[in-house]
């Protein structure tokens, strides 16, 4: 039969040739190198940096955002985006505040936070997949809408009467030293990592992100996946609302203001292509730690927050350009090598 003839003539390897260089080229390793660099610089400039208690407490700064970054990565990989996450936090925190004032207990408040988040996510997801509107437009709309509701309900006021039992989630420690929030983030990172990288669902998410039409033609329920991803982002934003409300013990309508851009920055810095199709959870986790450690180091050195934003912006541009520049140099080298070969013919 012709097939056997062809296979004899032509052998296809199982996988690409492994090379050390290819490992060093991955985004995760570049980020990891940067993280080590930041560690070294920080520990040399401040004597307080390499202190276990300080380091552990520094995670409070980013854990809530990091938890939202995980499902956000899935949404962006599928070519969508959710700008409304920080507003969902405000909405959920407001709902929890109303609940607390009505005397609802801790489990009830957590349920309110999560359910509010899921409902907001479903609303976004319905507008995007049900009505076929662009995600960026929809979530810019709900970005104003959700926080607007919080402003209308709370006005100038604030809710500060939360039950003592809620404190643990945002202020508690596990093993006496590691913040509960951070442990929760690591656990969720594992869940999302396994989901995206080891399951059928993850494979389909990448398929949708790389070619939604071909994915649909292949029998993948593209819109169902996108809808669920929006619900997941909403739910994690609800969870973040629970943690944040517990941590600061109060709700104001301007809670978590501007977080959406920090979260999206973490995701993109983590190597998730803003146009969809590629990115990994480990990358996002390293990016989260990198941003967290830089913020912490700057804080120790009393560098103002404005400088911090300048630094993160530059970091984002540099990390995005490095792989592209490296690729360009390698292409050029390859071309030169080939031309040299032709010349000796």
């Amino acid at each position, binding site marked *: 039969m012709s097939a*056997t003839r062809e296979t004899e003539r032509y052998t296809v390897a*199982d996988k690409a040739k492994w090379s050390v260089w290819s490992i060093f080229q991955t985004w995760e390793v570049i980020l990891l190198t940067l993280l080590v660099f930041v560690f070294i610089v920080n520990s040399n400039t401040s004597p307080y940096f390499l202190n276990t208690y300080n380091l552990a407490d520094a995670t409070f700064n980013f854990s809530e955002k990091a938890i939202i970054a995980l499902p956000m990565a899935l949404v962006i990989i599928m070519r969508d985006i959710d700008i409304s996450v920080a507003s969902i936090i405000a909405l959920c925190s407001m709902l929890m505040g109303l609940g607390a004032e009505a005397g609802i207990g801790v489990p009830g408040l957590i349920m309110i936070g999560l359910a509010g988040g899921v409902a907001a996510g479903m609303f976004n997801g319905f507008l995007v997949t049900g009505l076929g509107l662009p995600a960026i437009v929809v979530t810019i709309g709900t970005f104003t809408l959700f926080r607007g509701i919080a402003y209308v309900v709370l006005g100038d006021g604030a809710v500060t009467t939360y039950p003592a039992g809620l404190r643990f989630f945002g202020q508690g420690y596990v093993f006496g030293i590691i913040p509960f929030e951070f442990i929760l983030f690591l656990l969720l990172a594992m869940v999302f990592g396994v989901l995206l990288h080891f399951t059928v669902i993850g494979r389909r998410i990448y398929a949708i992100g790389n070619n939604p039409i071909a994915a649909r033609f*292949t029998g993948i329920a593209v819109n169902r996946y996108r809808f669920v991803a929006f619900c997941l982002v909403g739910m994690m934003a609800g969870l973040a609302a629970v943690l944040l409300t517990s941590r600061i013990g109060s709700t104001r309508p301007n809670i978590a203001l501007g977080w959406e851009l920090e979260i999206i920055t973490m995701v993109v810095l983590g190597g998730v292509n803003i146009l969809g199709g590629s990115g990994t959870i480990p990358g996002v986790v390293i990016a989260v730690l990198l941003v967290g450690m830089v913020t912490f180091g700057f804080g120790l050195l009393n560098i103002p927050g404005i400088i911090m934003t300048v630094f993160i912006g530059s970091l984002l541009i540099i990390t995005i350009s490095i792989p592209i520049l490296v690729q360009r140099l390698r292409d050029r080298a390859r071309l030169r090598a080939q031309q040299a070969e032709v010349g000796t013919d």
Partner: protein
Amino acid sequence: MVRETAPKPVILEVNGLSKQFPGVKALDDVSLTVRAGEVMALVGENGAGKSTIVKILTGIYKPDGGSIKVDGTSVNFVRPSDSWLAGISAIHQETSVFEELTVAENIFMGHQPTKPRVPLIDWRDMHQRAQEILDRMDVPISTRALVRDLSVAQRHILGVAKALSHDAQVVIMDEPSASLSRREIEQLMVIVRQLRDEGKGVIFISHKFDEIFEIADRYTVLRDGELVGDGDISDVNQDDLVKLMVGRSLDEVFPKVDVPIGEVVFSVDGFTHDTEFDDISFTLRKGEILGFYGLVGAGRSELMQAIFGITHPRSGTLVLDGVQVKIDSPVEAMRAGLAYVPEDRQHQGAILPMSIRKNMTLPLIEQLSHRGFLNRRKQLGATKEMGARLSVKAAHWDQQVEDLSGGNQQKVVIGKWLATRPRIIILDEPTKGIDIGSKAAVHEFMGELVAQGLSVILVSSELEEVRGMADRVIVMHEGRIRGEFNRRDATPENIVSVASGLELAA
């Protein structure tokens, strides 16, 4: 028109052109000439180097070696404007136009006539000159019409007008008829003849042999970046050209095998869609290749997508093995034993940035997993099996599909669907834009499929393909079935006249 017999003057002379790209020698010592008042057909498979020549002649690429002479003077193109200043103009496959601008603005883009001494566009002069050019070609398009509102054919005519506005001596037409209807092609041919009669040299690139034999005076054949033959078109026939292009004959491109045709396995009854197709009924038998021929826009792909559950018809029924089935989604179609290899390989078929393995295993990923967790070994096994069956050529199975040639990409897409073990496979333009070698392989494979008892629906706009491969040909026109021919009656005349709507009454 009386044709001169004396040798016409050479206006374009290309000598020893070479161009190297990473990993491929695109052109190797290629020479060709174009004479005034002559149409020269440049033929070759995809990747033979035709586009590279065009890009060098239009100043987009710089050659590594060789020389170009226009009207006897050596030229060196540094940028695209050098090329049209020298008198060479190209009409590209995908004509680049500015949709929101007028016809006149498009024609004179980059060299708008200006008022004397002031850098302002002379609109009156521009429209007047545009009108003169359009009049010369005898086409009734307003110079003030927005290009957005033009048809594909009119856009090609606009491309020709643009070339004329440069006062081009050499006009390059890169597959100008690829997306045109029969009548529009006729119009285009008239214009090509006019250019020729005005003494221009035309380089005509096409995959369609009937056009080449209709219009060309001479031919130049490229294969793998090398010149393999040239001469007068009257000295060769289609078989000779194909042999030059690929080193194999027509019979080898359409290796039709005779398979006993069995009972009816699938029938479509009264399929109707609001806008795309109307009252479609047909049957498909075991071991049969059923061809669907029609012009672009006849509604064939839309029909197939509705059968496969991607879109939903307003009414109509599907019967599989005598049992009526309802297919509302691709998943249900797959379960029913259908597979659909879509027309647009790059957008609907393959997921280009993903690997061969991930593409091939995507429809079956659940079966190749363990409780929802991916299993690399199972995937690799399935990929190797299908890959070998279709003789996919790649470095390794984790190679991205976008790095493969068009033919191998198509093999991956077909493989991905065959892995679902369908009983009926719909191939929508399976060999569009792939080289003849891969084309022959796909056709050979279709024969293997029907020999195994599958049934194939072959949608194709290529007459030779449906005639060469199908047992029965259904011809569609404007969303309706207008004719059905068995293999013996499927002559080009019969098929084309029905497809173009000429025999509506019959």
